[in-house]
């Protein structure tokens, strides 16, 4: 038998809070009572001609409103159910505000009167609505915007509070609508606007639940049970693994100030948002009006937001993560910001000192093997045995965490080095990979990997040579001997990324 909770009503409604008194035409926003603490909440009636809101898809952000008086703003948002990749080779049916996850970014000014049109595309299978956390009123617009496929709803609200707000669908089963990507951000600028910055970006995290496991190929249906158990298959920024990676990375130049509008759609997980190698100079925590300074990691609640600002001082690639790190490395919560510009060595020196530190992963006596090999090399020649011994120690300290001590890697995540056709085909390419990392699809023994190996540029030429010589001597590999000279040449010809190691 089913559990039978207490029954309250004979009449049941299905969108969120239905006690909303407004009819689309009946609302008189000018009469709204200001009950909030926000200063000068009601800025009076809208002035001038109505304006059409500019909507953008992440990571783009609409320009500042630039207005110093409240206006009537018309927002038209279309709901579409679309099939798109959530990861390489993995498709998912997203329910979207504006065709993408996260939904279109809406930017208005405090005091604006917003005439909201929600259009549900005729090809939709579900009814949808919108609950904007920026709305003061029952359900945040949900009841007034409940819309069948092929229909449009209109409602009007006055933006009384400044801040960065999440909006989302609130149709039953609401968790599922949100889990399918139905969320976005609406920024209500304070009357004086936000201080100007050089770049603004829109980044929103969400958790996804698929029947197939992480990166299992094909069209993956929503898994209700995993969602209820809060056991996410994917945790991603901007609706897909890799949405902010490679040529889709966020861009900035040295010396610029960057502002990120961060949202978290959930439906379940709270984000520990962090940018590797940066400190947030300023955080409008929870998307509110107060700021905190010098923040390493900021918490973004499900159904909440934060605005972070930082000046980028040194060139290189900065990695955006949910610092709940298994989400970053095994579920997709990883993005990048590429910062171009000259070196700023007084701020970040690059590698200054390099000494062997093998810690607990290394075999006892490892330091000795490495020292032995370097000593021999300094004399002019190094024996294969010394190279292999040194390489073995270094491999254990540097590579084995990912590629595993037996070189077999982890299926789907870290490719094997044992018997790898890719590795054996080209020793110089392998040296290049160790020095500069590897990013993007690669096929090893017939299986595709699409991930990121960080550069190991901290290794000396002879260390790289020893590691590779060791690797080639093991596990059925083809016995290539790699010399320090060869590695030096590879290093000279390779463009070394800056600051990418964490």
């Amino acid at each position: 038998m089913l559990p039978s909770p207490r029954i309250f009503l004979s009449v049941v409604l299905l969108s969120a809070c239905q006690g909303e008194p407004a009819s689309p035409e009946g609302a008189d926003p000018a009469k709204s009572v200001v009950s909030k603490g926000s200063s000068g909440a009601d800025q009076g009636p809208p002035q001038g001609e109505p304006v059409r809101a500019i909507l953008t898809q992440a990571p783009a952000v609409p320009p500042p409103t630039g207005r110093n008086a409240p206006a009537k703003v018309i927002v038209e948002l279309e709901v579409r159910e679309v099939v798109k990749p959530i990861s390489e080779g993995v498709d998912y049916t997203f329910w979207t505000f504006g065709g993408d996850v996260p939904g279109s970014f809406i930017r208005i000014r405090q005091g604006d009167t917003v005439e909201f049109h929600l259009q549900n595309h005729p090809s939709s299978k579900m009814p949808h609505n919108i609950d904007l956390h920026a709305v003061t009123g029952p359900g945040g617009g949900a009841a007034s915007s409940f819309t069948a496929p092929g229909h449009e709803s209109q409602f009007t609200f006055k933006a009384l509070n400044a801040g960065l707000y999440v909006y989302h669908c609130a149709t039953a089963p609401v968790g599922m609508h949100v889990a399918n990507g139905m969320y976005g951000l609406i920024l209500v600028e304070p009357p004086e606007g936000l201080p100007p910055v050089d770049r603004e970006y829109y980044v929103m995290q969400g958790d996804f639940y698929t029947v197939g496991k992480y990166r299992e190929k094909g069209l993956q249906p929503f898994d209700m049970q995993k969602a209820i158990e809060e056991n996410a298959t994917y945790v991603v920024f901007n609706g897909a693994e890799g949405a902010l990676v490679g040529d889709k990375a966020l861009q900035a130049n040295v010396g610029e100030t960057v502002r990120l509008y961060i949202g978290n759609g959930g439906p379940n997980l709270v984000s520990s948002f962090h940018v590797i190698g940066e400190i947030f100079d300023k955080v409008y925590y929870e998307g509110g009006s107060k700021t905190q300074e010098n923040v390493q990691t900021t918490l973004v609640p499900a159904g909440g937001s934060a605005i972070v600002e930082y000046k980028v001082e040194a060139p290189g690639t900065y990695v955006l993560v949910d610092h709940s790190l298994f989400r970053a490395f095994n579920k997709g919560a990883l993005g990048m910001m590429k910062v171009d510009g000259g070196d700023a060595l007084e701020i970040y020196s690059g590698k200054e000192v390099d000494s062997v530190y093998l810690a607990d992963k290394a075999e006892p006596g490892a330091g000795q093997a490495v020292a032995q090999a370097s000593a021999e090399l300094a004399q002019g020649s190094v024996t294969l045995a010394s190279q292999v011994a040194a390489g073995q120690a270094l491999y254990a300290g540097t590579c084995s965490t990912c590629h595993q001590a037996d070189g077999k890697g982890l299926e789907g995540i870290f490719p094997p080095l044992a018997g790898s056709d890719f590795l054996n085909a080209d020793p110089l390419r392998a040296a290049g990979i160790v020095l500069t990392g590897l990013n993007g699809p690669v096929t090893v023994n017939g299986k595709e990997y699409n991930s990121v190996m960080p550069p190991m540029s901290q290794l000396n030429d002879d260390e790289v040579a020893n590691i590779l010589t060791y690797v080639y001597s093991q596990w059925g590999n083809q016995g290539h001997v790699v010399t320090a000279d060869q590695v030096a040449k590879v290093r000279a010809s390779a463009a070394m990324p800056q600051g990418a190691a964490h």
Partner: protein
Amino acid sequence: MDPGAALALSGLTVLVPAGEHRPFYPSPGQETVQVATFAMDATPVTHAEVLAFVRDQPQWQRGRVKRLFADERYLSSWAGPTDLGTLDPLAPATELSWHAARAFCQAQGGDLPTVHQWEHAADATADAPTGARQDPATLSLILDWYGRGDTPPGPVAQGAPNLHGLYDTHGLIWEWTLDFNSLLIASDAREGGDQDRMRFCGAGAISAIDPADYASFMRFAFRSSLKADSTTRDLGFRCAYPLSP
């Protein structure tokens, strides 16, 4: 695909035996309702059947139907008022308003099924009169269906029937019910300030018998988004018939 099955089964009716039904949203103090035996179309009504109907009753043709009875999308995928164009005649008829679906059923001597009748009939699994709502296979059928994206529904009766011999109750289209809007009565009295309604914050989860029954949530949410003139691409219908006239 097997057009033979669609051809043989569309237009047939089957008997749905009486039974106790546990509504997804029960009334206070009334956990179950008694549903009397009735007859029901074995499959959703097809395009071919609606074509015959609008030939017979031209006031239900696209272009002639009263605006009050159907919105602008009414039968808009048809090539003409009496021309299916490329639509599969054996696929379920959709883009019909509640008024039109009712008129069709009444012309056959029946009516649309009530929510209780429909839910009771569709709760049968392949071998039991109830349980589809708790059946993971039924749920995954529905999730697969919406996951298939922007594809119009294929012909009826391609899957297996449930215990009563009903096809396509889940996973092909949504279906009209006679009292689809019974859940919306309160919205006409919204200004009444009924505090209890606020308990439905949380999108209906508080009052449902099984908060994990996502398929029912979706169905009830869908129904409550409709008006009697609404037509949508994935909404069709089948008729119910009383046993004695």
